[in-house]
């Protein structure tokens, strides 16, 4: 593939600006804002990867948060310090009980990175197996079946006490996650999903989303693109799970359930199913709105208010602007720095 240098340049400029912003934030010591920006990054990974599986292929999965849970638990078990492991998970099998991914290269927690990768790869494998079965279904039956998967994951986490402490708090996870970790992964997720969208695989995803029968008729097999989307999506979702686990440091299976699913689905639908930049915008909008509403809620003790407002906005979008803010179009941020690029093609249209 021929690399378009001006585009590459745009990516680099964008990343550089991001890096400067992060560095400034890091230096400011504003813990609150750092927390928010970390959360934004994690949700961007979640939403962009959900978009890959649900938006691009139209196979609406409600089970992705199950992958997140597996990623979180998987990597947390690997990085849990040995003393805590003995104290909290006394019945771990020996080969796991002695494992502690705490290697560093200088200040760089290589162990955390390895644990994240191992967990995410295992989850991708699980997704491959699950996908082989579930991606045969279509329409809303996929939604029900994947929701079933989410429930199954939850039941297993609840019952595999030896590994997860069941529904009791899994605590004492080392807080490795910081701004840099999250945003390196977020940029990577955006980049990968973006490249998939504009690859031939991406085109088949969209083609079979628009009309499965027609896609099959012209010889597009629906299974490979669906499966690819599902597995890559699960991989990044699991990475987000690992990052989240090492950010909040204490969690239980309840954290990774329907509330979170709905939150991410809202971000996806708001931004537009099929648009990577739309997902980023969706995350920013929903996070900002949720944060504002949370404050109103706290002051007035109107718990539930933010949930109602977000859900009403969600319904309004579904009813009046089903394709979301951007549909499957993109804001061509990789061309914003190209001379005249913004004028020539402000928005790339997929179809």
């Amino acid at each position, binding site marked *: 593939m021929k690399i378009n240098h001006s585009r590459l340049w745009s990516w680099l400029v964008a990343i550089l600006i991001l890096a400067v912003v992060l560095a400034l934030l890091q230096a400011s010591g504003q813990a609150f804002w750092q927390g928010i920006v970390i959360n934004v990054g994690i949700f961007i990974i979640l939403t962009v990867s959900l978009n890959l599986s649900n938006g691009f292929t139209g196979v609406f999965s409600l089970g992705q948060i199950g992958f997140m849970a597996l990623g979180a638990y998987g990597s947390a078990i690997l990085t849990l310090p040995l003393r805590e492991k003995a104290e909290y998970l006394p019945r771990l099998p020996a080969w796991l009980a002695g494992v502690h991914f705490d290697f560093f290269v200088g200040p760089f927690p290589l162990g955390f990175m390895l644990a994240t990768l191992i967990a995410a790869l295992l989850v991708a494998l699980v997704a491959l197996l699950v996908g082989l079965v579930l991606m045969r279904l279509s329409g809303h039956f996929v*939604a029900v079946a994947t929701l*079933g*998967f989410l429930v199954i994951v939850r039941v297993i986490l609840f019952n595999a006490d030896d590994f997860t402490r069941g529904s009791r708090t899994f605590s004492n996870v080392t807080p490795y996650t910081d701004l840099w970790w999250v945003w390196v992964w977020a940029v990577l997720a955006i980049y990968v999903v973006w490249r998939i969208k504009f690859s031939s695989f991406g085109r088949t995803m969209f083609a079979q989303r628009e009309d499965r029968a027609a896609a099959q008729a012209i010889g597009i097999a629906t299974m490979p693109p669906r499966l690819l989307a599902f597995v890559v999506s699960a991989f990044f979702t699991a990475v987000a799970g690992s990052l989240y686990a090492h950010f909040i440091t204490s969690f239980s299976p309840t954290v990774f359930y329907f509330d979170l699913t709905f939150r991410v689905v809202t971000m996806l639908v708001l931004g537009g199913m099929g648009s990577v930049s739309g997902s980023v915008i969706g995350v920013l909008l929903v996070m900002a709105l949720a944060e504002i509403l949370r404050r109103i809620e706290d002051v007035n003790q*109107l*718990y539930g208010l933010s949930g109602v407002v977000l859900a009403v906005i969600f319904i309004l979008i*579904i*009813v009046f602007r089903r394709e979301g803010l951007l549909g499957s179009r993109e804001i061509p941020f990789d061309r914003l720095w190209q001379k005249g690029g913004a004028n020539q093609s402000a928005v790339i249209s997929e179809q």
Partner: protein
Amino acid sequence: MPLVYYALQQVINALSIGSLYALMAVGLAMVFGILRLINFAHGDMMMIAAYIAAFALGAKLPLPVAVVIMLGGTVAVGMLTERVAYRPLRGAPDVALLLSSFGVGQVLQNGTLLVTRLMQKPILIAFPAPEVLSGAVALGPLTVSRLNIVSLSAGVVLLVGLTLFVTRTTLGLSMRASAEDLVAARLVGIKINRVVTSAFQIAAALAAVAGLLFAVQAGQINPYMGFTPVLKAFIAAVIGGFGSIAGAVLGGFVLGALEVLLTALPGLGDLLPPGPVADFFKTFLPSSLTSYRDAFVFVALILMLLLRPNGILGKDERET
């Protein structure tokens, strides 16, 4: 013979929980049949009903009055959601309807949370169970809880009533016809909006009854109480073939039986006299397996979707 009582007790449990699932699943199936909507907010209708009943009973209203208020309120909410969130989506893709019902569910849950908050009530409120539904009755050597008896009889009465309604009345026939073939239903002059509204009314009323019974059983209610039952109702509906009323009833009872089997068998090892049989159960069906029940049930759901997407009673004519 305690083991015989154990078995009988489990049969009663299965029938009782099965009839609740059937009530829920039928509501789902009616709406699905006509609109192709998998209504995620259905469980929240149940929750709304439980809250209305709790406030009515808490205000010391007699049970029949409370039930009437509950039915009226829930049906009104059901109609409102249809008008606001589903009617504008006629003709939209399935997933849009599904997502909309998610939104509705979230609005109902958080709205309930907000309202209870404004009323200075805690999230979890105790359900003032009426006297009629508490306690146990001796049936020969068996002690059966009144709630079980009421659930089962309410289920049977309502389902028989519903069957008569959909086979004997024009509106009922119109509903079945609309579920079969929406275009043809329009062409013969059936008022689709009226049929859809009625379907939502009936679904809401059935959910309301189920909600009351669930609330009495649980003893307390919270805004999220509808989530698990609606998932179970999905399974029941899928087992029976989504969209078929008879299938939904059957699915409800099959699911009830399946669940009780999955809980009763693993427990057996503890009850049998010590010996090889008890050891067998303890080894292969330990009682800890019980808590994997929901996982098994959902695996069954997925298998069902893959192997017989139209359910036990379903026909293949929908396949297009």
